[in-house]
Every structure is written in structure tokens, then in C-alpha cells.
């Protein structure tokens, strides 16, 4: 509110400010509180980056090796290989499928809340979503273990194959052995990111001016035509922001995913099979490794990758917002 300070009475009417007023202590204190976040981020980036590059500096592992598909960190089992590609691929694939499931559902829910729902329905669904946000990730993981995983194992344990008359078998996938799988991870994540994507897309839909809706309806379109051809295109960058935020949350989620994906450190093969992600491998191994050994340094490198992913998404969201403000 800088413009208000300039609206002070003319200096002649005012006593010369004392030393205390000139220092403006309150301003300094609140500024220190707000700017402490800059310090926190700077420290966090420096520490994680420093630990993350130890694998290359102290352990002399070539930088290119982290993109190898083999994870063999234990020197007692032969030559080591610190390929973290399986974890990166796991994070990307598990997050990708979670977004495929969650985006239509969340955007649909946002449209329901902003365009369709009567006031009473909104008054029930919105608080329900806030409760979803509050449910701790370990509780989602536990629900995954006790309900989703046994359900997948019991229902889809057979091999899945699709055959066409002339071409023959076009698709085959092993069934769920234990239920701990890529799909289980994606399903748990898709529910966890639903409130994020919904609330951000909801704001984007609400931001579309009411006149545009009225104008469109006056032309004789149905509500769905208005949504399809007017609302979704106008709110597109807002919806994209929502998806990026959901993606960030999904890629960074650790415990719930670790509990249901089976943690197999190999390249993801099928959606019914166990995989692993960056976060879950860090969670599992950090406690079992010694500070300074290459194995743990590789885990720090993985957390550096996670940090880079999240900072990139912040920059991406800022760019999307700028585009929206610009248009």
C-alpha cells in the first residue's frame, strides 16, 4: 500500500519525525519475517545441490552414469552402477498416469462446481474437498494397502491380452501378482492431487466473465456447448496451471506412493507391475545407508533431481500465469 504513505499531510503540518519513526522498526521486523523465506530457499538449494553433486565430486562417478538403466549401489555385489533412470522413469510414468486419471475428473468437478451445481451442492462439495486436502499422505497410503492393493490383486490377477482376428495378439500384459503396482501408485496419487487440480481450475473457470456465458447462451447454445467451446478455451491456461501444480504434488509425494508401488528398482515394464520412484527410493534407503558413502550420495543426487523438477514447475506456472495476464 505504498500509495498511502505518499498521501501523508504536507510536511509543514507534521512534527519532524523522531529517530524511532525514521528507523521504522515495525517495517524492518515484518520485512525480515517475509524475506526469511528467501533465505530458506537459498539455503535449501545450496545444501541440496552441494550434497547432490558429491556423487560426482567425491565418489568420481561420471555424470553420464546416472542416466544408465541399472541401479546397483551395493559394492559387495560386484561393480556398482548408479543409474537413476529407473527412478526418474518411475516418477514420470506414475505421475503421468495419475494425471491422466485425475485431470478429467478434477476438471469435471471444477466445471460442476462453477457451472452446474446449485448453491446447496457447492456448500457440501467444497468443504468435502478441503477435508480431502487435510487427509495425511500416510492415511492415503494405508487405504491403498488395505483396500486398493488387495482389490487389484484379487480382481485382475489374470494375464490381460487383446487379440484381433487377422493381426493376432496385439496387446498383452501380465496380471497383478501382489497388487503393489504402478497403477496402485497412480490411483492413490490421482485422488491426492484431485483437490489441487479442482480448486485451481475452479478459480480459472470463475474468472471467465459472466457476460461471455450470457452472450453465448443468448445465441441459443446449450450449456455444454458453452462449456466446450467457450469456457474451456478461455480458461485453458488456468487449467494447465492446475495440471502443472497437480503434477508437482504427485512427483514429490513420498510416503503414500512408497507404500503401494512395490518398490522394484528396474525400468517400468507394465502398469500391473511393481515400479519405484525417486521419492520412494529415497525414503526407503536413506535410513539404511551411511553418510558419505556413494550409495547415499546417489540418494542426494536423486533429491537434487526432485528439487530441479519442482523449481522448473514453479517457473512454468509463472510463465503460464504471465501469459494469462497478458492475453
Amino acid at each position, binding site marked *: 500500500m505504498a500509495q498511502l504513505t505518499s498521501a501523508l499531510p504536507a510536511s509543514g503540518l507534521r512534527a519532524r519525525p523522531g529517530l524511532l519513526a525514521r528507523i521504522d522498526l515495525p517495517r524492518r521486523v515484518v520485512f525480515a519475517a517475509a524475506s526469511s523465506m528467501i533465505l530458506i530457499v537459498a539455503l*535449501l538449494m545450496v545444501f541440496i545441490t552441494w550434497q547432490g553433486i558429491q556423487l560426482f565430486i567425491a565418489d568420481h562417478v561420471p555424470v553420464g552414469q546416472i542416466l544408465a538403466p541399472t541401479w546397483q549401489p551395493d559394492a559387495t555385489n560386484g561393480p556398482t552402477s548408479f543409474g537413476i533412470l529407473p527412478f526418474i522413469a518411475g516418477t514420470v510414468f506414475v505421475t503421468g498416469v495419475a494425471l491422466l486419471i485425475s485431470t478429467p475428473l478434477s476438471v469435471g468437478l471444477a466445471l460442476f462446481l462453477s457451472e452446474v451445481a446449485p448453491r446447496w451442492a457447492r456448500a457440501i462439495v467444497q468443504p468435502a474437498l478441503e477435508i480431502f486436502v487435510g487427509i495425511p499422505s500416510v492415511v492415503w497410503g494405508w487405504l491403498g494397502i*488395505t483396500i486398493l492393493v488387495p482389490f487389484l490383486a484379487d480382481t485382475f490377477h489374470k494375464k490381460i491380452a487383446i487379440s484381433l482376428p487377422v493381426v493376432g495378439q496385439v496387446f498383452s500384459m501380465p496380471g497383478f501378482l501382489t497388487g503393489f503396482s504402478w497403477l496402485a501408485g497412480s490411483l492413490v496419487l490421482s485422488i491426492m492431487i484431485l483437490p489441487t487440480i479442482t480448486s485451481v481450475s475452479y478459480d480459472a473457470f470463475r474468472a471467465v466473465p459472466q457476460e461471455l456465458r450470457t452472450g453465448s447462451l443468448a445465441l441459443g447454445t446449450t450449456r455444454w456447448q458453452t462449456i466446450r467451446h467457450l469456457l474451456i478455451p478461455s480458461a485453458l491456461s488456468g487449467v494447465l496451471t492446475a495440471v502443472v501444480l497437480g503434477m508437482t504434488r504427485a512427483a514429490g509425494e513420498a510416503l503414500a506412493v512408497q507404500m503401494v508401488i512395490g518398490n522394484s528398482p528396474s525400468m517400468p515394464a507394465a502398469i500391473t507391475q511393481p515400479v519405484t520412484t525417486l521419492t520412494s527410493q529415497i525414503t526407503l534407503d536413506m535410513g539404511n545407508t551411511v553418510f558419505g558413502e556413494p550409495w547415499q550420495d546417489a540418494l542426494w543426487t536423486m533429491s537434487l533431481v526432485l528439487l530441479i523438477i519442482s523449481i522448473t514447475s514453479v517457473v512454468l506456472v509463472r510463465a503460464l500465469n504471465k501469459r494469462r495476464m497478458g492475453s
Partner: protein
Amino acid sequence: MTATTGRVAGGPLGPKPSLRRKTSRGSLLADRAATVVLWGTGVFVLALLGAIIVHFAAAAWGVVSPSFVLSDPSDTGLGGIGPLLWNSIYMLALTMLIAIPVGILGGIYMSEYAGENPITSAIRFAEESISSVPSIVVGLFGLILFVDNFKWGFTVLGGALALTLFNLPLMTRLSEQALRAVPQEERTASLALGATKWQTIRHVVLPLAIPGLITGVILTAGRVFGEAAVLLFTAGLGTPPHYDFTNFKTFSLTDTNTAWWHSSPWSPLRPGTTLSVYIYKLQSEGLGVYVNQIVDGCAAILISMVLIFNLGARLLGRILTRRLTAA
């Protein structure tokens, strides 16, 4: 087209039946289908939340009792979760003790002082970055800083500090929103009466923002209470010993024997496994006959706390707004 009696969106704003010729039967059907699907998303979310609550209510039946809530964990029987619940509450109190003042002061800067300049946008960038950094990475940062560099080991204080810096952006943003919601006229009037900027903030803006600030505090508290990934490597995940609540020996510069402070529940410099971390620990170890019952009980308690925090924030905010605006 007399057969198509479908309601055109917009109610009274929709065209009269005679003008509806252009709206084909297909698009009316599509509109109907879309309405059904969009309602379906809302019903799905409510049904899911209902199912989760019913599930945990049923699972906790016969497990959660006063003795379960209060007594120590047991190796042989069902035992209890008393020390874990205490650690959760103690951790929450310690975190909020730091996060509330710093967050509100930061919010004051962002709402009342910050102008359009590079420093403000740097603070915003930091705020968004911390919010999007995965909680496990924040936990690792706490591991380097508090556990290793400061040589504290796993402590409640280290966990609380890590939780503070993770939740500071949320607390700051919610405070900023609460303060921005105070009408500009209140500030102008106060300044016109000759009050200084700080007097205006202290005696006019802050009191008016109290309902919003309290809502912010409760929402942040809800998130802190359920967080586990941050605490895994900062506060530890061992089973706590029996806490003697009459033991106030929390710190001593002369006594080098630190063993005794581990059994004082009041000491911030002892490991402190919380309820959420305990869920993670129990399910990953999977030992004991009663694991499922205990985890269900813990999860039910966490979910009830989420419900209480959410409803509490809503109710208190509403009551305070009524009180303060009526006075």
C-alpha cells in the same frame, strides 16, 4: 421439434421454445449427458469421502478407547499410542509457536508494505518454491542442517523447525489474504485521523483480520499435524519410551549425561516420533499381530483431527466474524 422438451441451459435466460429450432436433438442430448457426468463427479467425491469416513469409523470400532489413546505401545498386546499422540501435539505446539508469529508478520509485510519491486517478486518466488518442493526434500534439508551440521541428532526441535520452514509459505499466504480482505477505507480513515502506518496496522487492520488469521492458523495446524515425510529424517522414527510427565529435566549445561532428557516429555531435544510417522513405521515393519488394528486406530484419530480442524476453522471464523462485525 416438439419432441425435444429438453431444458436449455440458463433457465429464464434460455431462448423461447419457438426460437429453439437451431438446437439439434444431438446437442441437447450431449448437454443432458454432460450434466449427468458433471453431477456424477460431485457425487463421486462425496461418496468417496463418505466411504472413507465410514471405513475408518468401522475399523476403529473396538480399537480406539480411552486406554488406547492414553497408554504406551506394547510389544505383546494391542497397547496404546499415548506417547505418539503427545509427540504429535507437542510437535504441533512447537511448530506453531514459531510459524504463527513469523507467518503473520510476513503476511503483514506482503499485504501492507510490499510494493511492485524485485524484492517482492523474489519473496513470492521463494514462497512458491518452498510450497512446491517435495516434503521429503525438506526433510532431507533438515537432516543436513539440524541433525548433521548442528549435531542435534533426531530431535523434536529439529522436526518442528523443518515443519516450520515447510509451512511458512502457507501461513504467510493465508495471513496475507486475511489482511488484504480488510477494506481499504478502514486504513484510509485511520491514516486520515493522523495514526501512523504501524498504529493503523496494529489497531485497525489486525483486529479486523482476526477471523481470517485464525482460519489460516487452523488450516496450517491441520497440515502440520498430519505431516510425516518431513519428520522421518529429522525427528526420528523409533518407538518412544515411557514418558514421565513429572520429569521437567529438559536441559542442562553442566550435566553431560543426556540419557535422562530422552524420557522427559517436555524436552525439545529428544527424538519424537509422531502419530503419522508411527503409521509409516508400523506398516513398513509389519511386525506383530495387532499392526492392522493399531494403524487403523491411528488413522481414525488422524482423520478425526482433520475433521475437527476443518470444522473448527469454519465455525470459529464464522463466530468471530459475527462478533467483530456486530460490535
